């Protein structure tokens, strides 16, 4: 089975993929199916749904007609085979790993991850018996050095939060491929508009939908997407995929469902049992958000480059870490992987360090001091005391969230107003 060809352009698919007029009413926009359960036509019909022999809805913990529109649209936009949506980006990471990992297995992860992911991997997952090795993946030799048989996947961010590290996805995918393990890419910060990880050989993509997909800072959500190209049977590393599943009377997911077996396994097993379901109302907001993803990302990137250039030239600023600037060390990788722009989230440092950083946050009048990114509004944050607070000082510095670092998420307001706001705030330092 191959993935159906997408004949329409990305901008058309953000609006149309996965949705259709409602079969019973003709409603053109996707309705919010705010229901927990669905009637069965007969006991036999019910049994065939529970046994996964028929497609259909059983209970909204497992699937919902509004949520499934979002899932198909995300799978389509990433040029993937299938997707499972869930309550948050963190839930997406748990669901993505659940079919791959057994107690004693390990994740090989880039050390340049969102602070919350580092904490989730190092502490919460430890209780499941899942280990993690963090490496500086900017040099792929570090991955090769650490990689061993206990690793069941490689996990990276396509564009790292907060400091915009861009990894050589294609080369890392090749390492994963040779080791017969999937490469998982968190594509939250780039969104499918800027980077398509499957085109560079990734096998699984996760997103926090809360960021650019929703885009308006109104809903929490996550999604796992599979490429459909990973061969589960090439090794005996993934018994959850290739051996009979007890809770489904011995069903072998990778066999029965073929190239969408991983998604079915996540939905029927992991989502069913871990329960991190996305609400239909939130799915509705994400579907709406996606319809303008291409327009917003274009403006986000354009504004961010202008703001970054302003800061780079400012005498009180010591550095700006934005891959859209020609001096940035990830500039060339950015040109390869994200030619349309590198997103609107970046960090900068002030010559006067930590205290000056805190001051600028208190003096801005338009930027909001919040722990989020990817909003229409411009946001400002001191990662060391917030998003990356749980990390050790050493971890903070290696994740690009040292004490002098300020993170911006540039919104889609007029860039002149954003620059003026920062210029004013900088006069107080």
């Amino acid at each position, binding site marked *: *089975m191959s993935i159906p060809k997408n004949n329409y352009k990305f901008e058309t698919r953000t609006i149309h993929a996965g949705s259709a007029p409602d*079969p019973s009413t003709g409603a053109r926009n996707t309705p919010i199916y705010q229901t927990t359960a669905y009637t069965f036509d007969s006991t036999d019909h019910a049994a065939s749904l529970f046994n996964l*022999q028929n*497609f259909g809805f059983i209970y909204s913990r497992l699937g919902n007609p509004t949520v499934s529109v979002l899932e198909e649209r995300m799978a389509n936009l990433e040029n993937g085979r299938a997707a499972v949506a869930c309550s948050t980006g963190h839930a997406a990471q748990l669901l993505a790993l659940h079919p791959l990992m057994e107690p004693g297995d390990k994740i090989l992860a880039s050390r340049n991850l969102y602070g919350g992911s580092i904490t989730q991997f190092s502490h919460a997952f430890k209780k499941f018996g899942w280990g993690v090795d963090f490496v500086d993946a900017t040099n792929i030799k570090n991955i090769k050095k650490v990689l061993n048989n206990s690793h069941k996947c490689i996990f990276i961010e396509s564009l790292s939060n907060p400091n915009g590290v861009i990894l050589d996805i294609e080369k890392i995918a090749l390492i994963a491929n040779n080791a017969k393990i999937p490469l998982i890419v968190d594509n939250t910060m780039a969104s499918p508009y800027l980077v398509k990880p499957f085109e560079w050989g990734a096998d699984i993509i996760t997103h926090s939908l809360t960021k650019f997909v929703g885009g308006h800072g109104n809903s929490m959500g996550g999604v796992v997407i599979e490429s459909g190209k990973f061969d589960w049977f090439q090794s005996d590393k993934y018994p959850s995929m290739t051996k009979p599943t007890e809770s489904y009377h011995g069903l072998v997911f990778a066999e029965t469902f073929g190239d969408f077996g991983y998604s079915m396994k996540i*939905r029927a097993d992991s989502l069913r049992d871990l329960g991190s379901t996305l609400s239909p109302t939130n799915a509705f907001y994400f579907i709406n958000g996606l319809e303008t993803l291409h327009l917003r990302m274009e403006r986000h990137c354009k504004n961010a480059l202008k703001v970054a250039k302003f800061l780079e030239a400012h005498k009180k600023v010591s550095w700006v870490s934005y891959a859209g600037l020609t001096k940035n060390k990830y500039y060339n990788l950015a040109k390869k992987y994200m030619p349309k722009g590198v997103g609107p989230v970046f960090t900068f440092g002030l010559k006067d360090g930590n205290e000056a950083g805190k001051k600028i946050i208190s003096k801005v009048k338009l930027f909001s001091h919040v722990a989020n990114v990817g909003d229409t509004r411009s946001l400002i944050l001191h990662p060391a005391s917030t998003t990356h607070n749980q990390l050790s000082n050493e971890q903070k510095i290696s994740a690009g969230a040292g004490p002098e670092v300020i993170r911006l998420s540039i919104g889609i307001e007029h860039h002149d107003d954003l620059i003026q706001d920062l210029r004013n705030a900088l006069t107080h330092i």
Partner: protein
Amino acid sequence: MLKNEDIVYEDYYIRSILDNTKTIAMIGLSSSWQRPSYFVAKYLLDRGYKVFPVNPREAGKTILNQKVYSSISEINESIDMIDIFRKSSDVDLIIDDVIKAKPSTIWLQIGVVNFNAAKLAKRNNINIVMNKCPKIEYGRLSGELSWAGINSGVFHNKRRIIRPIIN
């Protein structure tokens, strides 16, 4: 050398086959409910198709309440489609019987590709589909596959009518 992923069919071709088919003989249908072939048969029966199981090991018994035949030549009714769940190379062993039954369509399941069979089908004016599953294609084109978050690649600006489940 043609690779499996190079085998693509237009949606209208698959749709017209599924719309014009009423009876399906399934060669290699398993009696074990966890097997993919059983899933496919159950789904197609629920969509109103008449299914003739063909499986010499189960001959004389029933699968999903349908009488099992030991070979295709035993079936006296007209067969619109022959759906084959066998290894690609094994298709050569049965293709003569399959052609003799004069179906409108020969359908080879996911992973089953046999270019000799395709050639013979074309020569006899029989539709051929390879490396696909009628359940997945039916679900994809009807919109049901999308319910599981699967990328159907199908775009609609009109209401779809999903064929009712028959019990």
